[in-house]
Structure formats: C-alpha cells, structure tokens
C-alpha cells in the first residue's frame, strides 16, 4: 500500500512549470531516493509534500487521506517528519534542549529525560549534550536535526540531502542510521546527490527531470538506463 501518493500534481511559478503532472507513489516501509539534475524540481516536490507550497492543481494523499490543503504542522502531527538540507536546528539552545523541544509535544514529562538520553546515544551526541547546537560540527548538526525529525516517531521521514557536506565516514554512519530507522518501520524518502549513499540505502529510485518523473526502478536499473545516464549520471561521472 502506498503511504504517500500524488495524483496529477502540478505546480506553476508564474510561467515556470516546476512540477509537471507528477503521479508518484511511495510504498509503505521502503527507502526511496529522489534524484535528478539541479533544477529538476526535487525541492519543489518536497515542499509540496510538506505543505510549504500548495500545488496549482492535483492531489496529495497520505495513508489514503487527502492532505493537499493541510497546513504543514497538521501534516507533521499525522506522522510525517522532515530533515532540511541546511540544518534547521535551534543554534542558541543546547543540544539537549533541541531534542526536548522536538519531543515534548508527543511525550509525557516523566518520559522525557529517558527518551532524550536514548536519542543522544543513537545520535552519538551524548558527550555534546550541554553544548550549544550552533557550536557543533557540520556533521553533528545534521545528525541532531535527524534526531529531532526522528523524535516525532514519524511513519514517514523526508530527508533533503541528509549527507550534504559530510565526510565519507559520516555519510556511511548516516546511512546506517537511516537503515536502522527503516528496520523499525519508518518509510524514508530522501533527496540525494551522493550516488554511493543512494546505493547504500535505496530500495527504489525515482529520477526527476524538468519536473516530471523520468525513470523509476532499483539503483541498478537506473544506473544501467542509458537515457538516465545521458541526462544525469553521465554528466556526474564525466
């Protein structure tokens, strides 16, 4: 069953057709990567899923319910969670407070401390818990935000370039985190440029080109598709 589905989704910015009749289905329980050249409309599609943009026409369904017009916070409360490309953390607050704010909406006060400690360990940030989030390394900031997204116990996790700016080691560790979450039942949709990372985590891959779905399949099918190579991978490998 599809956890997230779109029907003929269109978005125009003035005369620019950035999302062109997208029919997309994300299966429950999969890790799905969204790739495509710059300007392919990946970020716009993401914002449509989150409700930061409203589509010009078409519909979005989450667990079979129409959420096309739902406000962003309403979608989050239904079980969608997001990690932004630029780490969206609360820089002037401590790591612990960041997690507390993410958690407190959904947990009883007496569960909070234990849950924060558990998350800190998962994120390898236990030693940094009293530091200001703004003073963390870039990779740690990315992890902290993943932790905040995970703290909501989402059913669907949207990741916008989760490994941007990470070292190869950090990237690999992030991949393991994502896989662990997936094993616990979280469906993951990630926009990603790093093909090694995509190969590590993706069950299925969708290629966007000029706002339309260009190709879909396993990473091996995508890599061996000559049309895809021509528009994207060819350039990237050149």
């Amino acid at each position, binding site marked *: 069953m599809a956890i997230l589905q779109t029907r003929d989704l269109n978005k125009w910015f003035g005369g620019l057709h950035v999302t062109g009749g997208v029919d997309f289905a994300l299966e429950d329980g999969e890790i799905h990567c969204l790739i495509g050249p710059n300007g392919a409309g990946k970020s716009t599609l993401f914002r449509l899923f989150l409700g930061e943009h409203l589509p010009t026409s078409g519909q979005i369904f989450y667990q079979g319910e129409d959420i096309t017009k739902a406000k*962003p*916070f309403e979608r*989050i409360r239904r079980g969608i969670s*997001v990690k932004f490309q630029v780490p*969206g953390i609360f820089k002037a607050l401590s790591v612990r407070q960041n997690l*507390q*704010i993410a958690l*407190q909406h959904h947990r009883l*006060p007496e569960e909070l401390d234990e849950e924060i400690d558990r998350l800190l360990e998962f994120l390898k940030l236990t030693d940094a818990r009293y530091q200001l989030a703004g003073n963390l390394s870039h990779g740690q900031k990315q992890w902290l935000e993943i932790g905040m997204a995970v703290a*909501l116990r989402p059913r669907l996790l949207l990741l916008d370039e989760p490994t941007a700016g990470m070292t190869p080691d950090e990237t690999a560790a992030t991949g393991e985190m994502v896989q662990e979450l997936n094993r616990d039942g979280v469906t993951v949709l990630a926009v990603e440029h790093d093909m090694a990372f995509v190969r590590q985590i993706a069950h299925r891959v969708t290629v966007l080109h000029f706002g339309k779905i260009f190709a879909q399949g396993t990473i091996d099918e995508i890599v061996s598709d000559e049309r895809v190579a021509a528009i994207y991978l060819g350039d990237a490998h050149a």
Partner: protein
Amino acid sequence: MARANLLSSTIRLLDGPQTLGRGRPFWTSFALVLVLACAYPMFADGYDVGNNVYFFNWVFMALGLSLIWGYGGTLSFGQTAFFGVAGYSYGVISTNFGDAYGLTLVALIASVAAAALFSAVLGYFLFFGRISGVFLGIVTLSVTLVLERFMAQTAGPEWQVGTARLNGYNGMGGMPSLTIPWFGGDIVLFPDVQLYYCTLALLVACYLGLRLLVNSRFGNVLVAIRENPQRAEMLGYDIRVYQLVAFVIGSALAGLSGVLYTSWGNYITPASMGMTAAALPIVWVAVGGRSDLTTTLIGTLIVLGGFQALTIHGSQYALVVMGVLLVLTVLIAPRGLVFSLGALAGGMFRRKTAGRE
C-alpha cells in the same frame, strides 16, 4: 508527595535554561535585592518613595516586550497602544463607578482585560495573516499613533463617557487612585509607602510568573520559534498560536503598566501613546538585553533612572542621549549591555564550576 513534586518542578522552572540568572549565587543576590527594596521605605521620605513607584510602573511593559520581542522574536512597536487603552479604560471606569467597595480593583482587571482583548484581535490578524518582521513593527507602531491621534481630538464636550471627559490633548485626570477595601476602612494607594509595597509585590509576582512561563514547555517553543520558525512548525507546532499567546500576555503587561501609571499620577494623556513614548520601551529593553527577563528588568530601571536624572538636571537632550544609547548598544553589544556583562560574569563563574552540571 504530589505537592512535593509540584514544588520541585516549580523550582526547576524558576531556575530553568531560558533565564540567564540561575543557581545559588543568583537567588542569593535576588533575595538581597528584594530585602533592600523592602527596607528602602524605612530610610526614605514617604513622598520620595511614592514618587519612585514611577520607575516600577514601567517595568511591567518592559517585561512584556521582553517576552514578545526577546523570547518570541517579534518586534512589537505598539506596547504603548495597550498601555493607553488600559490607562484610558481605567480612567473611564473608575471615574464612573468611584472607588468604594474595591471597584477600582475591578476597574484595574477590566482595563487590563480590555488591553488583552484588543491585542488578541490585532494579534489574530497579524499572526494568522503571517505578517512578520519589520512589517509587524510598522503595523503596531501605526496602531499606537492612530490611537494617539484619535485621543488627541477628543477635547470637545461630546467626548464624554458617562461622567468621564476624555479631554483631548489636555489629558484625562481626576480618576481615583487604586483603593483596597479593608476592615478598618479602605486603604487608598496614594503615591506613598503602601503603593510602593503593593507595586513591588506585583512586580515580583510578574517577574517570577514570567520566569515560570519562559522555562515551561510554552517558553521552549517560543524560543524555538525565535530561533527557527520553519523548524518549529515542522516539529508539529502551530507557531501562530504560540506567537499570539505571547503577544497577548506581553500586551496585557503593557496594559497593567498603563493602569498603574494612570492610577499613580491620576492622569493620562494621548502623548503616552505617541512616537516618543512608543520608542522608549524599545530602548529600555534593547539596552538591558531583551532576551532575558532579569537583564530587561535591571536595564529598564537603570535607563529610566538615568533618563529621569538627565531631565531633572536641566538637560534638554535626554531623548537624544536615549537615541545614542540605543545606537551604541546595537553597535557594541547587540544582545544588550546588562546581558553582555551578565554573560561575562556567568561565564567566569561557570568555568570555576565546570563539569558540575
């Protein structure tokens, strides 16, 4: 057991992470300052004590602005609008109903409620209309200036509510002082020692109450919205509601200032909502350090005291000095002068006790 839990969680909130002053040294100094403030009337003339209540009157408005601007990240330029609404409401209500049977206290509550209601309506359109940043500042400033203009043209006899004349630019006067009904006869709070203690008690209560608020779950979210509204919303919070609630509480505190001021001097004028008046709270709060209640409180009292001294000693340039002070603060210590000093002292102290937390 439940009571003990409540007590410990209350202490935890009073001493929480969203307030700069924490731990034993802070609360020792707090107690010391409070004792000094309580002892002050014993060593001073009643007339002076009553006059100096003036300084306390403004602090409520400043604390409210600290909540809206410093903690919530929304610059409201309209604190004086709510100050004026509550001040005039108090004037109209108390003039009409008099000061018997504790009716002035009813007038106080009704006036603060009027300011809160007004801010709720205005705030609804601002926050649910997604107006933010400099535009919110412009709209709130416009509102206070419109109110000033409106009150300024109420000089004619047709501008009368019951027995209360609004009096245009001459200002409204003659309303009764706050009066507490008491067994041996009413206590009238003229600017004297009784008023001093009442206002001080109210100030301490508001300060501690706000400390609880900003360290609560609500305060956490408010600060999160200031830091990154998008992320806060994407954690499932309806940020408009949080901003609106903070705005209403902060504006109600400005209203409280308005009532206390009007009752203290038995007088209010449209100028209290004018451009100069609207700018001053920004200066107090910015100079002290808007993102903390304690620095706001200290900064406001210092700046008010300095301003008063400059005005009394013949300088016509007190306002210019205020402007220069604001510019210097923004350039040298954008987080506030008292805040920067406090952070410095706190940092030195923390280094000594590092690793204890």
